[in-house]
């Protein structure tokens, strides 16, 4: 949404016919301020997108860390495999 000047700001602007050179200068400066503000807003949005991705990655890495901590102990797997081999031999 466009940001309009407040009533107070509007009332402070020179009126047409009263210092036209100053009014034009002010208008130019206002335009420049607006342009720079738009650039800042766009940069904030880029920064926001990057910060958002970072938040996603951080959460994902935390989850992976938690999952890694739950990986079963290798010895237990070997024991289970041994049991399976015993079953296989028994069936044969």
């Amino acid at each position: 949404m466009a940001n309009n000047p407040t009533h107070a700001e509007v009332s402070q602007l020179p009126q047409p016919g009263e210092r036209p050179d100053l009014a034009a200068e002010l208008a130019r400066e206002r335009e420049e301020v607006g342009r720079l503000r738009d650039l800042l807003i766009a940069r904030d949005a880029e920064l926001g997108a990057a910060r958002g991705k970072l938040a996603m990655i951080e959460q994902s890495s935390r989850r992976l860390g938690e999952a890694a901590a739950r990986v079963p102990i290798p010895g237990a797997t070997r024991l289970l495999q041994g049991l399976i081999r015993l079953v296989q031999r028994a069936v044969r």
Partner: protein
Amino acid sequence: MAAPRFSILTPVYETPADVLTEMLDSVRGQGFEDWELCIVDDASSSPQVRRILERARQRDPRVRLSVRAENGGIVAASNDALGLASGEFIVLVDHDDKLHPDALALVDEAIAANPEADYVYSDEDKLDEGGHHLSPFLKPDWSPERMRTQMYTCHLSVFRRSLVEEVGGFDADFEGSQDWDLVLKATERARAVAHVPRVLYHWRGIATSAAAGEQVKPWAFEAGRRAVQAHCERIGLQARVERDEKDPGIYHLEPELTDEPLVSIVIPTNGQRREVRYQEVALVGHCVRSIVASSSYENYEIVVVADSSTPPAVLEEVEAAAGERLRLVEFDRPFNFAEKINAGAARGEGEHLLLLNDDIEVATPNWLERMVMYSRQPGIGAVGGRLLLEDGRLQHGGVGFEGGLPGHPYYGWPGDAPGYANALKIARNLLAVTGACLMTPKALFEQVGGLSLDFPVNYNDVDYCLRLREEGARVVYDPDLVMYHFESSSRSSDVAEWEKEELLARWAAVTTPDPYSNPNLKEGMPHLGSPFLWARRRLRLRQRLAGAVAR
């Protein structure tokens, strides 16, 4: 012979031999044995398919086989299979997929726990070409709003057979999405829907399966859109259904209101000023200007509840922006956010109330139409949307509960992030949405006594939504309603311990666990916690033992 509990319906067509055998083995390997398998071969040309099916029938009397003389497509074959069924419930299993060995046992348990359940579904995952399990889809409990924007129940689906017959079985008008159409029709009439939060179905993503994406069966996604549109018309939801431009599996509801009931937008304020996008503004003035400038809805009033300390210049700004729409309510009592909202609501004359923080900026022109579309629907108590921080990151995509306390899953993620299983891109039900932007029918607001004054600062919105649920009303999150929220500009976001304790004392039984999350999700994402690992380990162990015995 007595009718079995379950009739598994499986239309078969040109299925690769190994895949078909695995499907049959997964049915025969069910721990729960009271089933029949109703197979219809849709005129496969491969003699191998016929041989495998004949052998399965000879080996197990519970296998019933019918062979079509000519290919009729999935709907015709499914209806033929339904014709063979005699079970109390029908179970849909595709010819190339697999059931978890405990699938039928756990569904049976769910039905025993909820005898009125006419439809039961479970979580699912996918199988790749190598047979590896991928992409577990961990689902919420029954969420009618989600069902309109995503076919999320999908597999495993179990229906009471009498209900399926009542709605006319599979409808050829929705070939390719006939299952979605059936779920919609059945749940319009179902007494109860049950969810088993376990991965009971393994969906194979082979080249010819819809699981592989839109390019395989493009017509199926368009049929899905038509099925939801037909459903909206049946239930009187004033919406046009549109497909997502990027993701074929998700849909959007666009409001098509026949009229515009009066909406009262209630904005509490103390006239605070703050910098927004590098310009200092009075927040309430900025908010009201954005409503007036951006809203396409015509019939609304703005009720501003202003502390008596609000600077007159701010009120003049609001008056100038809102004009005739403004109703100004002066609030001169000690701070109580809930009381301020209630005071504004009492002054509002609208059929629907919209609770809005003064640090909100409208970013969706048809935001009010969207909210009214839902709010006027019977059974819906509150509607909220997707709120973004000033830099575009996500502030609110619905309230989720963990340990009984509310939070904002995906907070701080990119504003266009889809979330897990597209949770942020689809409409869905939740226990609560933020009161920063919440529409509710005024009659319901009055019926439950408005916001509770016991929560003067935090949780009054959550408590309100939970009371709506107690009244049988649902809370909806609409992802296409986007607003900016300059978050807690006017008050501290800290939550006091007593507020947490009070909320837990009132609602822990409802919010623990959050029915719209899943026991295997944490902060909105799959969490490899013990229940999930247990299921996978057990399955793998069974498969290895079965392999050992077979050898």
